[in-house]
């Protein structure tokens, strides 16, 4: 049951999906489960809606984890964040205010087929599991498949490459489903957050070009506040800045699409660990990594309740 669920170990897709329904069953006033579509292999794409169901037009925050299958700390964080929010609601004033005034749409595993495959076959699989054309290679990079400067610099048109952009934009059912959901809720969603690993960075648009976003000063200060909040937990430093100059140029990314779709605050977190473990962050470090990142996400969400 919920009280025995271990948030400090990695869970399989089946366990995470069962956990989502258990959270709805035990906290119906704060958690509901939505299905936004089906994956390439036919698995449901579940999203948790977290927050007090008060006004239908509340501002909203979208957060997805597990876009790249091998980045297991992502789904662990999404679960942790939900647990943390629910357990501190009514006890912590910041959390209470956030859940009363905002809706959080949280997708613990975006790339369900890839994540399942990384548990059962290839621990370092990154892409989706779709099959296109006659190519013997599977999968599309779900962070190169969005309809923004699609398949330009920083993406590959070769199906066997890890940054394969796909046969066309939104070719991946997972990308298409989330894009459709965000388009439908575009008036309410004010922040888009995507959780990746392991460069220890907080990135914002643009990825596909070196230009500066129009609301740069607001986004920059939100990022600065977020990495300061993260640092305050365990003294871990994250770099932050535009993805194109802080990491590398890439086209068809979700944060560029979200931003171009009208979401003013779009971020990609690159969680731990760049020091010793890469994708293999041990379970013993799930707690500190998730605790520090929870502070950063709360800082971003709180910023939405203030004027910039």
């Amino acid at each position, binding site marked *: 049951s919920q009280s025995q669920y*271990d948030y400090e170990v990695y869970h399989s897709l089946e366990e995470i999906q069962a956990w989502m329904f258990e959270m709805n069953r035990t906290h119906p006033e704060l958690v509901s489960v939505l299905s936004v579509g089906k994956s390439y292999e036919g698995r449901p794409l579940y999203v948790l809606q977290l927050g007090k169901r008060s006004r239908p037009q509340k501002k909203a925050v979208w957060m997805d984890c597990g876009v790249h299958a091998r980045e297991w700390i992502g789904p662990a964080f999404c679960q942790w964040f939900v647990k943390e929010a629910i357990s501190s609601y009514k006890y912590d004033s910041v959390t209470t205010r956030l859940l009363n005034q905002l809706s959080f749409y949280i997708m613990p595993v975006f790339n369900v087929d890839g994540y399942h495959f990384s548990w059962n076959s290839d*621990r370092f699989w990154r892409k989706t599991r779709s099959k296109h054309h006659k190519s013997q290679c599977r999968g599309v990079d779900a962070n190169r498949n969005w309809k923004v400067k699609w398949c330009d610099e920083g993406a590959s048109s070769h199906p066997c490459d890890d940054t394969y952009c796909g046969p066309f934009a939104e070719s991946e059912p997972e990308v298409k489903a989330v894009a459709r959901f965000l388009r439908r809720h575009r008036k309410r969603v004010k922040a888009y957050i995507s959780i990746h690993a392991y*460069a220890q960075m907080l990135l914002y648009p643009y990825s596909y070009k070196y230009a500066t976003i129009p609301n740069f000063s607001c986004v920059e200060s939100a990022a600065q506040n977020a990495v300061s909040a993260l640092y305050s937990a365990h003294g871990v430093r994250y770099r932050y800045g535009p993805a194109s100059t802080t990491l590398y140029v890439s086209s068809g990314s979700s944060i560029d699409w979200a931003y171009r779709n009208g979401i003013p605050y779009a971020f990609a977190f690159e969680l731990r660990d760049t020091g010793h473990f*890469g994708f293999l962050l*041990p*379970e013993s470090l799930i707690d500190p990594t998730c605790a520090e990142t929870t502070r950063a996400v709360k800082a971003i969400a709180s910023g939405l309740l203030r004027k910039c």
Partner: protein
Amino acid sequence: SPYNSRYAGDQVFRITPSNAEEVRSLKKVLGRMKVDFWQPSGAFLIHQNATVDVHVKRNDTRVLHARLKQERIGYRVFISNLQKEIEKQTGYHSSRMRR
């Protein structure tokens, strides 16, 4: 054991090319091998003074050691046995017991 020990003996190399020539050489060396890019996500994204982590199958580790030495490109072994690290990550035995 997890993944039927398919990663036994595999290694992750950490390489940081310090100039344009080393970037060129590294792209050439890695372009001729089947490696899994951990960061960045592909050879074409390698750039100066940026960390490159690549997962190399056990049968190819010796070749890469030799090539990097030959090209005088500085590197270190980031993970010396991937299978062990995988088992450590999930505390394989203990966490299964716990579950």
